[in-house]
């Protein structure tokens, strides 16, 4: 069934729609692929063959009954384990939620089901989405299909690894500081962070509520746009959801025209300290865009230099508050309830045993930053920086249509290299964080392999809030030109499946 697996999601959806292949056949092919390679990759925390096949048969039955279904109906998708699912466990890769089954579906989950997508399983991640390598999972290591000694990125590293290893054509993720774009970049995929409020947080286990944004992973730009469209849009159950139409991302992905587009290169996100091969591919892509008729302008966003610092105060502050819900009383783990201990002691023992080192570190850091006496100096100052970053974006978008940068300072780093050094790990998010703090749309598209290590490099495109379509337009132009010249990037991966 390598034919089915090598198809794009768009083509597979069309083939299922035309009756050339059933969803059950496609789902079976992908389940078999997961069985054969996931022992090496470790992308999935949970796969239930029977549940997946039941969904596939239900889609086939809906179609047989004459129901009009969307372009991805019957296509398998992998779901990050941070989204609530009633028919599969939902753990956020934490021991504190081991085996938990939510009583309701996340809005994103419900929309995947309505669109007829088949949820193949739940993917590994950094615990509670805190990390850039998926090494903070309480359950397992996930490996990068390009080099299995390297990290697949994070926090949505199970999703990126699953798509890059052709275990599934599409996957969901959440992006709080880069957790979709960074794993997409290091695995050679397209990954998008929609405008904050453009995709629903309802039923997503919260990390930092003012930043968390669900988004898509795919092997190409059009597939990412189709998945983006399938699960985004206004949700009355999320109080920060934007009541506006989904930007025309699918049309933009088909168009891929950059003639006359003004592209701003952010000086602060193109540092001498970045890996040389990353900068080389980035600058070649700028030349490529120029040759296609785009106007390239260099500009400065000075407060971006403080974005990483602001983020590592704001995100831990919000997480220390959000994770207070894990109190060992209503759901999840409970430790030490022997009849003699108080509720408070049981709570403290449970949280100490149920949370991993990075989660504890961020809870303590956030508790400090929010403490009386330190609040103004840390959390307050970080919120002021957030205002300055928004102002920098606003000023830049008065002169250009999109901003661009490398997605990450380096290609995928070796497993274990940064796990004992939190600050080194945090640097992986340097270029992605500004868009989370300002809430604008942002996307990563592959722009080649770094010459020194042969690993994928990501090109980041940032657009104003609700102008997500511009990121897809530029990405489609880059993808089309590079694949006409070099062939599809993923076809060079050791885990590629050729048609």
């Amino acid at each position, binding site marked *: 069934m390598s034919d089915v697996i090598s198809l794009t999601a768009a083509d597979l959806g069309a083939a299922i729609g035309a009756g050339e292949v059933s969803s059950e056949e496609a789902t079976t092919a992908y389940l078999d692929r997961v069985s054969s390679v996931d022992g090496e990759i470790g992308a999935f925390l949970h796969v239930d063959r029977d549940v997946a096949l039941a969904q596939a048969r239900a889609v086939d039955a809906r179609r047989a009954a004459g129901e009009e279904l969307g372009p991805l109906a019957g296509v398998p998708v992998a779901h990050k384990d941070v989204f609530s699912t009633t028919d599969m466990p939902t753990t956020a890769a934490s021991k504190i939620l081991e085996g938990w089954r939510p009583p309701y579906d996340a809005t994103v989950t419900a929309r995947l089901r309505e669109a007829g997508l088949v949820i193949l399983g739940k993917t590994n991640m950094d615990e509670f989405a805190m990390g850039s390598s998926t090494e903070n999972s309480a359950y397992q290591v996930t490996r990068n299909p390009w080099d299995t000694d390297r990290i697949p990125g994070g926090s949505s590293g199970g999703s990126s690894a699953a798509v890059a290893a052709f275990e599934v054509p599409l996957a969901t993720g959440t992006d709080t500081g880069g957790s979709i774009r960074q794993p997409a970049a290091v695995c050679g995929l397209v990954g998008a962070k929609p405008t904050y409020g453009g995709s629903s947080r309802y039923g997503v286990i919260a990390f930092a509520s003012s930043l968390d944004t669900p988004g898509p992973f795919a092997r190409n730009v059009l597939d990412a746009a189709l998945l983006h469209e399938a699960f985004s849009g206004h949700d009355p159950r999320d109080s920060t959801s934007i009541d506006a139409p989904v930007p025309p991302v699918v049309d933009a992905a088909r168009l891929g025209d950059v003639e006359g587009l003004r592209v701003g290169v952010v000086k602060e996100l193109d540092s001498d300290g970045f890996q040389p091969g990353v900068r080389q591919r980035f600058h070649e892509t700028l030349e490529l865009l120029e040759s296609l008729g785009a106007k390239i302008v260099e500009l400065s966003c000075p407060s971006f230099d403080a974005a990483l610092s602001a983020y590592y105060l704001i995100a831990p502050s919000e997480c220390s508050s959000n994770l207070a819900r894990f109190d060992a009383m209503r759901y999840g783990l409970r430790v030490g309830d022997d009849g003699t201990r108080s509720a408070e*002691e049981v709570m403290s023992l449970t949280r100490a045993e149920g949370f991993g080192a990075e989660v504890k570190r961020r809870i303590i850091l956030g508790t*400090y930053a929010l403490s009386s006496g330190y609040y103004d100096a840390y959390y307050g100052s970080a919120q002021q920086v957030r205002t300055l970053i*928004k102002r920098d974006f606003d000023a830049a978008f008065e002169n250009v249509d999109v901003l661009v940068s490398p997605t990450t300072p380096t290609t995928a780093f070796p497993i274990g290299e940064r796990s004992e050094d939190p600050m080194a790990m945090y640097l992986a998010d340097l270029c992605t964080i500004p868009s989370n703090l300002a809430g604008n749309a942002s996307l990563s598209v592959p722009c080649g392999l770094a010459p020194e290590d042969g690993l994928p490099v990501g090109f980041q495109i940032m657009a104003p809030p609700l102008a997500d379509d511009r990121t897809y337009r530029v990405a489609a132009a880059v993808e089309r030109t590079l694949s006409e010249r070099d062939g599809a990037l993923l076809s060079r991966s050791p885990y590629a499946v050729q048609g």
Partner: protein
Amino acid sequence: MTAITRDEVAHLARLSRLALDESELDTLAAQLGDILTAVAKVQEVAKGDIPPSSHALPLTNVYRPDEARPCLTPEQALAGAPAVEEQRFRVPRILGEEE
């Protein structure tokens, strides 16, 4: 350089209901100092009269109609509970012996 003492970490751990062991307190004290030193950059940039932003986008409160709607059944609500008694969450004692 921001120095965080072990006692300060122990206090933060009590506030955040984390029963950390001795070695965790030592490790976190060192790491927290390093992280706070690095992120103190925000204090250099955030000078003067800049309004804080708690969110990226302007927020207005959202209400739903005040109408009775179906909700979780007791069985659904209690399905993930660590302990249940008489259709309620069973919890450890909340008050101390002397109270």
